[in-house]
């Protein structure tokens, strides 16, 4: 299979859906002529033209509001918010408008849109351009929240998001854009709400999302090679809907749970999953679940500082080893 980058997968995913359906339109800052700040939309303007790929002013509220109005009345917009940190500027739409319109109208209105954004740390951008905001979104009833870790998942989950009748927040990890993976030719459509077991194992379950997935995989290889611990790595992929079946199934098999989150520790998605496992599978556990997170601090800019706050393969190895071998 040919390899492509995560960045090119974004372009291919959007192009696939725009080719399939004329109602799919795309808007954001610098996305058209300039091809996006992360170059994740290069060529779309040339391919689909100025009516379907539109540059907007620096108006995050207008971008998301317009996406909503268009979605309510028949289009399927994909809106780009350049950095996920800027969700705070247009959070009204994310928290109050998209997710509540269907419920408040007793099912009359719909909001089939996708908000794509560059999420996460690793680029030394500092505290206002590096956050992982999945937890901001996950807590809101009415939204779906997806964060792929590989090029093939980018295309498949983006297609699923565009075809989904609910508003979907699609979090692309900035540090993954240059990474490569195998992608088959032809149309790719995945399913939301499905976790993927990327590495089967017997001794412990490691749950990870986005950038933490390759780190968890690397940690699992080292745990096996250096400590004889055989870990199952599950890519959660979608926080809402959440595939608890796969997660609980894995815990039932390994009896140990580790979550790896690129988030400030407080109220992270890992806490929610730990609570579900404690509620529903407590007797499957042979030891306390362990959350590996960033500390509860804003993200620092310097590489030496940023590198130590994000969970690393070393930290994952260490946490699993200490928990299993004392």
């Amino acid at each position: 299979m040919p390899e492509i980058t995560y960045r090119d997968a974004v372009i291919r995913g959007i192009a696939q859906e725009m080719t399939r359906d004329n109602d799919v339109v795309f808007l954001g800052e610098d996305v058209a002529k300039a091809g996006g700040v992360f170059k994740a939309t290069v060529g779309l303007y040339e391919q689909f033209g100025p009516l379907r790929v539109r540059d907007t002013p620096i108006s995050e509220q207008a971008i998301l509001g317009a996406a909503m109005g268009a979605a309510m009345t028949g289009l399927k917009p994909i809106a780009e918010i350049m950095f996920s940190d800027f969700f705070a500027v247009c959070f009204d739409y994310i928290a109050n408008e998209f997710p509540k319109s269907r419920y408040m109208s007793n099912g009359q209105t719909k909001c089939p849109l996708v908000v794509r954004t560059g999420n996460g740390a690793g680029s030394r951008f500092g505290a206002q351009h590096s956050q992982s905001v999945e937890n901001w979104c996950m807590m809101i009833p009415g939204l779906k929240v997806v964060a792929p870790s590989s090029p093939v998942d980018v295309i498949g989950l983006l297609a699923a998001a565009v075809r989904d009748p609910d508003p979907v927040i699609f979090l692309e990890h900035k540090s993954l854009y240059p990474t490569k993976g195998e992608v088959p030719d032809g149309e790719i459509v995945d399913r939301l709400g499905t976790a993927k077991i990327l590495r089967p194992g017997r001794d412990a379950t490691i749950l990870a999302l986005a950038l933490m997935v390759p780190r968890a995989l690397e940690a699992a290889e080292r745990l096996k090679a250096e400590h004889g611990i055989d870990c199952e790595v599950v890519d959660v992929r979608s926080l809402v809907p959440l595939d608890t079946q796969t997660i609980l199934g894995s815990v039932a098999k390994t009896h140990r749970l580790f979550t790896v989150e690129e988030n400030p520790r407080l109220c992270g998605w890992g806490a929610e999953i730990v609570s579900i496992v404690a509620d529903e599978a407590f007797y499957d556990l042979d030891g306390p679940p362990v959350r590996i997170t960033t500390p509860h601090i804003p993200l620092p800019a310097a590489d030496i500082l940023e590198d130590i706050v994000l969970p690393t393969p070393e930290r994952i190895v260490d946490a699993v080893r200490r928990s299993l071998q004392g």
Partner: protein
Amino acid sequence: MATAQNRAQAVPGSGLNDDIGEDKRLAIYRSQLRIREAEQRAYDLFLQNLVKGTSHLSLGQEAVATGFAEAMQKGDLSFCTYRGHAHTLARGVSVEKVLGELMQRDNGLMRGKGGSMHLTSEAHGVMGSYAIIGAHLPIACGAAWRAQYKGDKDVSVCFFGDGTTNIGAFHEALNFAAVWKLPVVFVCENNLYMEYTPIGDVTAVPHPAADRAASYSLERIVIDGNDADVVYRTAQKAYAKARAGEGPSLIEALTYRHSGHSRADPAKYRPEGELEKWKERDPIKIYRERLKQFGVSDKVIAEIDADVRKEVDDATEACKAAPMPPLDILTTDVYADGGWAWRN
């Protein structure tokens, strides 16, 4: 203002300007009165503890909602605020559906899931009332963008108050609509107050909407929002411009709310005599006189009055008799599959 001129032209036998026609005039009168009576009733029902929560009445502002709605065509879309009863009724949603929602009954527009501040009726083009100030201006842009993209001829009309012009989304939406030349009409109902503070105390320009229009290369339009004919003609012009692909309009309609901001507000902050002065220019009073000037008989007017009162009485009784919503709707329609499940 265009008002004085229009009123002069409207005098019968003076080369009068009856482009509106009797049928439309009677419809405009009926609609304003329906809003007045329904809102007055909502207030009475609140005093009887039958309307709960909050509600924001448009008593005194009926001409704006009516004039803009009567100039709309089927398929045009309205976006309103928490003060949206008037706009919703003006698009033809029944009094029973609106009162039912205010009374939290199962016959309400959203069966009690929306409430006073969240009226939606897609079938009537009422695309929701938004309780976060200014949120709906960008949303209206999006609906207008769809019309532009698909070659549909409908116009999106977005109502909001003077206080809303100081929120970021207002300015983002105006610029966005202007650069994309969207078929959207923004209607600021300047009733002189935000919640309790006079708009002039917190705004750098005297006309909070119109004085900003130039920033978005739009025409400065201020109209008499208490004269439904003026409103109607202004709306027609703006819609025609939008349908012709000539872009958005921003209209500031001067009006006044007779009641407080919400049902909890006795409006003590108003200077003495202000309300009385505006009541002389009550839109319904103005319109009743207008009808007479155009030769409509007292009898016809009295019939409409009686009709509307009966409609509101019947709706009230129907709502009183209606059951409360069943609890099983609590968890419906969070997601498009009809349910609320976020995990398997």
